[in-house]
C-alpha cells in the first residue's frame, strides 16, 4: 500500500544507471488515485460510482437538526441588567438642534422648498453673498434689472413747490432717519473731474480715416499717425528691455565678484560647514534667524557709517574745487542744455497737438487704446463685408479713465494672508499591515 502525503524526497533529475531508476521515484499522483478508489469502495461498496442508482448517492433531509434546538432556546433567557437599562427609553421625544428641525420641515413639494423654487433659492444665496463669486450688490442689480423707475416717473426738472430747507432739516433730524439733509453743497462737488488726457470728451469725434469706406488720403494720414505712435511705443519697449538685460547682467557679474572677495580662508571653512548643515536640515521652512545685533556689530556699523560720511564729504569738496576751476565751461554747457530742453519741449508741444497727458501719481497708467485701423488688404468698399475693428467696451472704459471719472487701477486677486507653514504629520508612525 502506497502512502500519500509522505515527506518530500530528494528530487533526482538524472537517472543514469539501474540503481538510480529504483530510488526516489515520485508516486504521489498514482497513490492519490488509488486511495480515492479505496475510499469509494469503503463507503459505497463499489469502485465505480456510475453503476450505482441516484437514490443511493443522494438523500433529502426533511427533518431539522436536533442539536440546534437548544441554541434557539437561549434567546428566551433573561437579558443582562446592563442591556435592560440601556434599552430603556423615554416616551418624550428628544430635543432637536435648531437647524436639523428646520431641515426636517423642508418637505419638497413639487421641487419647492418652503414654497421657494431652487432657482430662487440660488438667487437668494447670491444676494446674501453666499455665492462667493459675486458681490451682493451686483446680485441685487441682476435680480432687479437696471430700470429703477417703472411707474413712478415724473418730470424731474418741472416746477416744484419751494420747500423751506431749514424746516426740512429740523424735521429730518427729529425723525428716525439717521441722515440729515445737507444745507450747503460744497463748491468742490461741482468741479470738473481731473482728466488724465486734457480735453477728453465723452465721445471723440471719429477720424475720417476710420470710415468704413475711407478716402485714400485720410486713410493714409491715419495710418501714418498710428504708425508713428506704434514706432514710438516699440522703441520704448526695446529700450526698457535692454535696460532690464543690462541690470540683470550687472547683478550676475557683481555677485561673482562678491563671492570672490568673500572667499578668505577663515570664512571659507565656516561656509562649508554651514552648507553641510543646510544639507542635513529636513525642514522645508526658512531657518529661524536671530535678528538681534550684538554690541560689537552695532559699533562696527556705526564706525563704517562715519567713515563713509567723511569720505563723501571729502569727495564733494574735491568736486567743488574741480568745478570752480572749470566754471566758465560748465556755465556754457548748462546754457546749451537749457536751450535744447526748451526746443524739445516746443517740438513735443507741437507734436502732441495740445493733448499732453497729465502726470498722475497712481501706480498704474490708464489702459492702452487699441490699434483700430484697417490695413490695405482689409479695406472693403461695401457695408456687407465690413468687419468691425476694436472693442467698444474697452474704449468706453478707457474713456472713463481718460476723463478722470475713475482712477486707473488693475484688478487685484485676493492674496492669502499668511504664508502656509508646512508641517510633518506623524501619521507615518501608524502601523500598516
Amino acid at each position, binding site marked *: 500500500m502506497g502512502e500519500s502525503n509522505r515527506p518530500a524526497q530528494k528530487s533526482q533529475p538524472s537517472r543514469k544507471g539501474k540503481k538510480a531508476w529504483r530510488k526516489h521515484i515520485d508516486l504521489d499522483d498514482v497513490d492519490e488515485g488509488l486511495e480515492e478508489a479505496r475510499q469509494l469502495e469503503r463507503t459505497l461498496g463499489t469502485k465505480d460510482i456510475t453503476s450505482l442508482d441516484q437514490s443511493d448517492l443522494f438523500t433529502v433531509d426533511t427533518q431539522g437538526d436536533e442539536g440546534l434546538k437548544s441554541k434557539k432556546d437561549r434567546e428566551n433567557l433573561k437579558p443582562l441588567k446592563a442591556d435592560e437599562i440601556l434599552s430603556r427609553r423615554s416616551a418624550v421625544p428628544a430635543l432637536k438642534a435648531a*437647524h436639523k428641525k*428646520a*431641515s426636517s420641515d423642508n418637505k419638497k413639494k413639487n421641487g419647492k422648498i*418652503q414654497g421657494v423654487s431652487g432657482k430662487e*433659492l440660488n438667487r*437668494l444665496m447670491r*444676494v446674501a453673498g*453666499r455665492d462667493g463669486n459675486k*458681490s451682493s*450688490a*451686483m446680485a441685487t*442689480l*441682476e*435680480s432687479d*434689472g*437696471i*430700470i*429703477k*423707475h417703472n411707474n413712478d*416717473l*415724473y*418730470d424731474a*426738472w418741472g416746477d416744484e413747490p419751494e420747500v423751506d430747507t431749514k424746516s426740512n432739516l429740523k424735521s429730518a433730524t427729529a425723525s428716525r*432717519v439717521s*441722515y440729515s*439733509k445737507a444745507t450747503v453743497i*460744497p*463748491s468742490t*462737488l461741482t*468741479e470738473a473731474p*481731473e482728466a488724465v488726457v486734457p480735453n477728453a*470728451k*465723452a*465721445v471723440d*469725434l*471719429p477720424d*475720417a480715416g*476710420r470710415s*468704413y469706406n475711407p*478716402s*485714400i488720403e*485720410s486713410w493714409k494720414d491715419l495710418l501714418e499717425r498710428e504708425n508713428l505712435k506704434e514706432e514710438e511705443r516699440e522703441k520704448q519697449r526695446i529700450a526698457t528691455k535692454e535696460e532690464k538685460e543690462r541690470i540683470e547682467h550687472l547683478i550676475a557679474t557683481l555677485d561673482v565678484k562678491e563671492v570672490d572677495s568673500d572667499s578668505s580662508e577663515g570664512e571659507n571653512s565656516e561656509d562649508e560647514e554651514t552648507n553641510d548643515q543646510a544639507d542635513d536640515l529636513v525642514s522645508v521652512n526658512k531657518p529661524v534667524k536671530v535678528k538681534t545685533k550684538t554690541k560689537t556689530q552695532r559699533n562696527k556699523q556705526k564706525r563704517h557709517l562715519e567713515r563713509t560720511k567723511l569720505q563723501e564729504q571729502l569727495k564733494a569738496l574735491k568736486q567743488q574745487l574741480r568745478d570752480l576751476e572749470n566754471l566758465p565751461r560748465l556755465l556754457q554747457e548748462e546754457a546749451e542744455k537749457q536751450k535744447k530742453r526748451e526746443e524739445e519741449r516746443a517740438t513735443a508741444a507741437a507734436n502732441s497737438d495740445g493733448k499732453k497727458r497729465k502726470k498722475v501719481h*497712481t501706480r498704474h497708467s490708464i489702459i492702452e487704446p487699441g490699434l*483700430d485701423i484697417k490695413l490695405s488688404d482689409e479695406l472693403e468698399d*461695401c*457695408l*456687407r463685408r*465690413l468687419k*468691425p*475693428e*476694436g*472693442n*467698444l*467696451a*474697452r474704449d*468706453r*472704459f478707457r474713456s472713463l479713465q481718460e476723463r478722470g471719472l*475713475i*482712477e486707473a487701477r488693475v*484688478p487685484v486677486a485676493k492674496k492669502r494672508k499668511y504664508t502656509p507653514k508646512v508641517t510633518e504629520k506623524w501619521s507615518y508612525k501608524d502601523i500598516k499591515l
Partner: protein
Amino acid sequence: MRIKKKHQAGAAKNFITRTQAVKKLQVSLADFRRLCIFKGIYPREPRNKKKANKGSTKPTTFYYTKDIQYLLHEPVLNKFREHKIFARKLSRALGRGEVGDAKRLDDNRPRYKLDHIIKERYPTFNDALRDLDDPLCMLFLFAAMPATNSVNYKVIEDADRLCNQWMAYVARERLLRKVFVSIKGVYYQARVKGQDILWLVPFKFPQNIPDDIDFRIMLTFLEFYTTLLQFVLYRLYTESGLVYPPQINASKMKGVGGISAYLLESRQNGLSLLGAKASENTNGKATTNGATPNLKMDRIAQADEEADHDGDEQEEDENDAANESALDTFQPIPATETAASDILAQPAPESEREGQLFSNFTFFVGREVSLDIVEFLIIAFDGKVISESAIDELIDNENEESSNDATEAYKKIDLSTVTHQICDRPTVPNKVPGRTYIQPQWIFDSINKGQLLPVANYAPGEALPPHLSPWGDAANYDPEAALEDGEGESSSEAEEEETIEGEALPDEDEEEVDEEAEEALERQRDLEKEAAGIKFSEQQSSAESKKRKKKTAADKEQEEKDLRKIMMSNKQKKLYNKMQYGIDKKQAREEELKKKRRKIEATKEKLKSS
C-alpha cells in the same frame, strides 16, 4: 507766535485718502466706489502729495474732504448700510434653512432710488441733455452685448428697450442731423432742444468681452445713466405730447424688432400715432395675423389721419407764431475808436425741410442690409420702410396649412409704392422696373449732405465714392462748389452730374446759370470800356489801387486786433491764441484742398485739350 503743527491745515485738511474716506463713511470699499460714481465724486490730485498725505508719498487716491463730508448726508449711503444689515439677516436665515423667511426678507429688501441725485447733478434739463453722450454710448454698448457671467440678460434687455425708446423719439421728432459709419460702429448726431448729442452704436456682431475691464464699475455707471435717460426720455416724450413708456407691438417685437415695434401714443386722445408714422406701411401690413388686428390697424390708420389734420392745424398756428416772433438778432456793441465791434454769429433759422429728406420715398430694404441702421435713418428722415427680413419673418410665422410660400406673403404687402430698393450685393438678378437701386451708403451720404445725391454713383456693383466724415478736416471747403477763379467754368463742366428723373437739383443749376451770366456781364463791361476808350493800363491801375485799399483795410484790421490783444489778460490772450491756432489750421487745410483741386482741374484741362 504759536508754533504751527505739521499736517493740521492746508492740503492735509482739504484732501482725504480713500481708506480714510471709507472708514469715515463706514461702508465697504465697493459700496464707496458705487456711491462716488452715483454722486459724481471723482478722485483728485493734490498739488503736493506729501503735504496731503502726512508726509507719505505712497500711491493713493485722494478725494476732497468736503465732498466726503457731503456724502455723509446722502440717503443712498443710508440705504447701503441698510442693505448690509439685510444681507446679514438673509445670510443668517439661509444658514438656518429658513427659506421662507429668507424669501420674505428679500421681498422687503431696502431699495434705493437715484432721482434726487439726478436732480442735484443736473439742475436744469439742458445740463442733462448736454451730458447725454456718455449715457447713450454706454446703453447702446450694453444693448448689443451678449449675456455672460458678468452681465445679466435682464440688464441687456433693459438697455435695449431704453435705446429703442430713444431712437423712436429721435426718429419721430426728426432730430437726427449726421451719421457716420466707421469701422468701430455707427456715429449718430442729433440735435435735441438745441443741444448736439453724439453717440456711437456698435454693429450687431457678437462682441468680445475683454477681461481687463471692471464690469462692476461699468454696471454702476450704467445704473446711473439708465435712470438719467429714463427721466430725460420722460420729459422729452411728455413735452412732445406722447405717452411714456411707449407701448410695444408684441408681434413685431417677436419678429425683426427694432424701433418700429414701439408705438408712440399721443397723450390727449390716446390714439396711436404710430412710432414714426412712416413705418406704418410695414407695421400695418406685416402684422396681419388675423382679422382683428387688421381692423385695428385700419382704425388706427384712420385715427392717424385725423390726428395728422389736427397736427397740421396746430403746426400752422405754431408757424405763424414763429414768424411773428422771428429769431433774435444779436447786436454787437457799436464800434468805438479804439475797438472795432465784433461780428457776432447770428442764429440760423432751421431749414423747413430739415428731416424730410425722404418724405416721398418708400424703401425696400434687402435682407443683406443691416436693418437697424438703415431703418432708423430712413424713418428719421420721413421715409417709409419695407424690409425683406420682416417679410421673411412673416413667411416663417405662417401656419403650416397655408404653405410657407413667399408669394403668399408678398401678396399681403403693397409693393407698388416702393421707389427705392437698398441692396448690398454686386448684382441684382431681376430688377423691378420703376425702382431705383442703391447701396446703403447713398442714404448716409445724402443725410450728411442734406440733399439727395445723384444715384448713379451708388448703383449696386458700382465702386462707391469714399464715405467722408461729416465732421471731417475739410473745414468749410465744399468739393462740389465751383472755384471762384478762372477755373470755375471748367470745374463745373468736369463735374458731370447725373440727375435722377424727377429729382433735378435746382439750386446747383441756378448757381451755374448765375456764374455764366456774370462772366457774360464781365465781357460786356470790357467791351464797353474799350468803346469808351479807357486804356487797359489805367484799368489795371484802378484794380491795383483797389487791392491796396483792401490791403490797408486788412492792415487796419490786424492793427485793431493787436491793439485788442494788448488789452487782454494773460489768460484771455492764451485762449485767443488757441482759438486762432485752430482757425488758422482750418484755413490752411481749406487752402490746401483748393490748391489740389486747381491742380486736378489743370491736368484735366490738359488732357482734354491734348
